[in-house]
């Protein structure tokens, strides 16, 4: 059972995936707190009814996962729950740095899966990690073009041609930093028409045909389906983005949290992640 609370937000907000039989008033409260208040209080009021509404003791966990993991982690959580009847996994999906901020501000998370190592290190530095982070997946960049590839892009060099509208992530976000390194490795000087703050925004510009090309992750191209076309970039192979996962010290269900981390890094977990386009660690 999956419950979603969708916030009417201009700023992107974490999306809560609830996997619990939740009393309606508490669910409403969850929506209110998730949408309206600071992050410190939101998850706190959410997790309490989530656990009390089930008949297992301490078997429920909240997983904070990077946005690019949303689909694969929804699948993983489902499978994990099947192997451990009574266990409930609640997913909180947002940008890695948003999640890190929430965790360091005291949001009750049991597991954190980041889209980059730097962000995980920020949490590690505050002694909130229960054990060492484990790399469970990798991701590389790919060129995304509109379905009919109107500008005939075949390589990164094409994307740097004058008159071609290329869109990348801003250097401040992980996919932008990666794009810079790929361009550097390829010896190509990109002059993007826009430096977006998220992969979603890059994909949006490409799928709408505004931009001719953009650099996004392989998994993003795959998740976008027919909206964009992916073109492999050989130079991107060297710029690997690694996804670390770790249990957190504040967890009240440490055993389940570690079990979930183990499950994600297991062969079963690998299958799910590979299906989404993630590379092996």
């Amino acid at each position: 059972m999956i419950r979603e609370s969708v916030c009417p937000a201009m700023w992107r907000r974490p999306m809560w995936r609830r996997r619990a039989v939740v009393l309606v008033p508490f669910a409403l409260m969850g929506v209110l707190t998730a949408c309206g208040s600071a992050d410190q209080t939101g998850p706190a009021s959410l997790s309490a009814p989530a656990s009390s509404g089930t008949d297992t003791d301490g078997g429920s966990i909240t997983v904070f996962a990077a946005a690019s993991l949303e689909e694969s982690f929804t699948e993983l959580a489902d499978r994990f729950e099947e192997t451990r009847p009574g266990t409930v996994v609640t997913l909180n999906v947002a940008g890695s740095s948003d999640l890190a901020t929430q965790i360091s501000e005291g949001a009750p998370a049991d597991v954190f899966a980041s889209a980059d190592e730097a962000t995980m290190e920020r949490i590690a530095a505050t002694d909130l990690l229960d054990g060492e982070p484990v790399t469970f997946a990798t991701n590389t960049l790919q060129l995304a073009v509109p379905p009919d590839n109107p500008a005939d892009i075949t390589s990164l060099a094409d994307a740097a041609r004058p008159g071609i509208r290329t869109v990348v992530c801003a250097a401040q976000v992980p996919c932008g930093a990666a794009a810079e390194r790929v361009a550097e490795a390829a010896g190509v000087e990109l002059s993007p028409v826009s430096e977006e703050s998220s992969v979603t925004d890059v994909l949006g510009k490409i799928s709408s045909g505004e931009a001719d090309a953009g650099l996004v992750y392989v998994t993003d191209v795959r998740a976008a389906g027919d909206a964009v076309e992916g073109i492999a970039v050989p130079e991107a192979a060297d710029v690997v983005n690694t996804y670390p996962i770790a249990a957190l010290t504040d967890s009240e269900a440490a055993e389940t949290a570690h079990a979930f981390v183990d499950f994600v890094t297991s062969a079963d977990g690998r299958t799910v992640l590979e299906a989404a386009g993630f590379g092996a660690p």
Partner: protein
Amino acid sequence: MELTAARLPRWIVAIAVLGGLFVVLPLVAMALRVDWPQFIPLVTSESARSALLLSLRTSLTATALCVLFGVPMALVLARTAFRGQRVLRSLVLLPLVLPPVVGGIALLYTFGRRGLLGGTLEALGIEIAFSTTAVVLSQAFVALPFLVLSLEGALRTVGTRYEAVGATLGASRWTVLRRITVPLVLPALISGAVLSFARALGEFGATLTFAGSLQGTTRTLPLEIYLQRETDPDAAVALSLILVVVAIAVVGGAHRVRPIGGSGPPGTVARPVRSTKDAR
């Protein structure tokens, strides 16, 4: 002020104070988080200055567009009657309630390369995507209803009687508009323009969706704040404060604009005095 408060039930005042705190407290909380020793360097960084200047420039242009198109729109809505006027008014005001992202998507499908007008514009050599023009269009789109709404309300309040008098005195339609209608609603026009400016300044969603984000071209202050938040929360907070200060200055300035005749004849001053006596 005290008298007015005294006449209200205390619990109403209490709730009002609570509501006020709800608005003010987050701003205070944000100000407390500002890294004051680093404040000046943070807000004067090249990217910050560029974003602020771009924001001011685009918002002013958007406001000018709002006035240019909004005044005739308000006049048509307030002074004419035709079939479908109600529907038209609702549509014009739609951006007020529409999530800005939706506005951005709508603009994309209109002015984008593959949009309704995109092909025509491209043939004319006009490229809107990823340009400052796109930012201005996004801002004008979301800000226009503020001007139309406040001006139309003022026009309806003022009524057509002064205009009718002007016409019987031999004034042409243009003279009536220029010498009577516009001066009468000038305070509303100014406050509407200021509101539009403030809305344009804060515009984020439509810009992000439609215009993109490139320093100096399309990355306005809200986009810069959103981006800085990823790596440099201190800079984001400092810039947010700048935006809040500009917004307060602008909105505060708008409220100082008084309606014509507000200075008041002795008669209108006497009225509150009388009601004070009544209260005793």
